[in-house]
């Protein structure tokens, strides 16, 4: 009789702290995947834009502009597409965790997604808050 009570009071107390922590990390990482994908794709797109600009430099300004814009716009559209798909997958995973009662993962993932929303809108926020001193 006493051994089960020890099992219930001591063993879970030790084992729950660790899964809670790792569950939070797991959830946060899952929630950050869309943002990570978005950032990686955008960096790659910027690099490819610069490469495209250099590759067609000899063909003149208009060809250069066209190539750079094509790469940039295609890349940004692709980035948005991948971001949306990644968000859908993340929300499905969150729903599955919720069904399984993995509250720590759910909370961490939702927090990460909230942070993602803030970081995604950061360029606009920076545009608003960056100090500008227009010439008179």
């Amino acid at each position, binding site marked *: 009789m006493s051994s089960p009570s020890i099992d219930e009071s001591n063993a879970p107390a030790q084992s729950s702290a660790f899964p809670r922590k790792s569950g939070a990390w797991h959830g946060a990482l899952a929630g950050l995947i869309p943002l990570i994908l978005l950032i990686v794709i955008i960096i790659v797109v910027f690099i490819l834009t610069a490469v495209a600009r250099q590759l067609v430099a000899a063909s003149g300004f208009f060809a250069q*502009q066209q190539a750079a*814009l094509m790469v*940039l716009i295609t890349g940004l559209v692709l980035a948005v597409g991948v971001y949306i798909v990644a968000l859908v997958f993340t929300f499905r995973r969150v729903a599955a965790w919720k069904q399984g009662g993995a509250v720590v993962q759910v909370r961490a993932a939702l927090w990460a997604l909230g942070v993602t*929303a*803030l970081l995604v809108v950061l360029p606009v926020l920076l545009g608003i808050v960056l100090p500008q001193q*227009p010439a008179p």
Partner: protein
Amino acid sequence: MSSGRSPSGTSTIEAVAVTTTEGHRVRRVIVTLLTISAILTFAYSALSIYIATQLVYAPQKPIYATPASLGLIFRYVTFPSREDHLQLRGWFIPGVLSSGRLTSQRTIIMVHGVRTNRADKGAGLLKLSVELARHGFAVLAFDMRGSGESQPAPLSLGYFEQRDVLGAVDFLRSGRLPFPELGRPRVITGWGVSLGAATMLLAAAQEPAIRAIVSDSAFTDIIPILEREVPKGSHLPQLFTPGALFAARVIYGVDFYAVRPVDVVASIAPRPIFFIQGTRDAFIPPSNMGDLATAARAAPNANVQTWLVPGATHAQSFNTAGKEYVDRVVAFYTATPGQDSSGT
């Protein structure tokens, strides 16, 4: 009873109960936040890219007249810019000495302003070129990249254009000159108006062969001007300016934040600089000249002159002051070491 229950199990059951009621609301809030942030940023990026494409493109204006229409001999020249080798078109006008002989010993590189060309009617560039040539100074006036008859290129407001001025120096020092019988210039000087002046300062800071500079209506830093002009031109709020400047960097490689003549002007010393600006310049406020002169004087051996032209608006000092402008500029260039030895 409670001691017999697993702590983790209790919190899980409670939390699940909470999440079933509040979870949907939290999830909806996050989905809304994610949607709004994505739409805002996508729209911001798209508009920034559009503004950037508008900012760096200027239709090339045709040349309306030549020095021949004002009675001077000239020849067309084509030379490459330094580093990126864009083909630049211009003309070379030999100086006319009082004896009537032609000379190229003291040559002035003349650089026009934004969205115009080497004959710039508005600033009287062709007239001034001819006046200087009649005072014995040869003139190399050319169209910067993306202007006049030169190769199309993004308008970078000095960032890339300084290579054009450096290309002009290379051309005078080692290119195939149109009047080989006159020999190579012994003294190369520079004159620029507005963007041309700022570009000349940026180029002269790197090229000691430019022995004296007349800077008419230069800006200290392009960013405050863009922060004023971009919202005006795009009819969009100021918050798009940083995005547009960043987009210009990504698409065209133009770093407008690096276009700051005020940072390099001191390195031109001991070569003389003559700053000119109109008192009624509303485009580039006259305080720019004061700031540039102060920065230039920071060098221990600085040689700086300034002239605020009463009543002159932007890039109109020559048109406003006329003969006085020519006299002052000629006096400044004449004082530059290196006399013309081809005989008067």
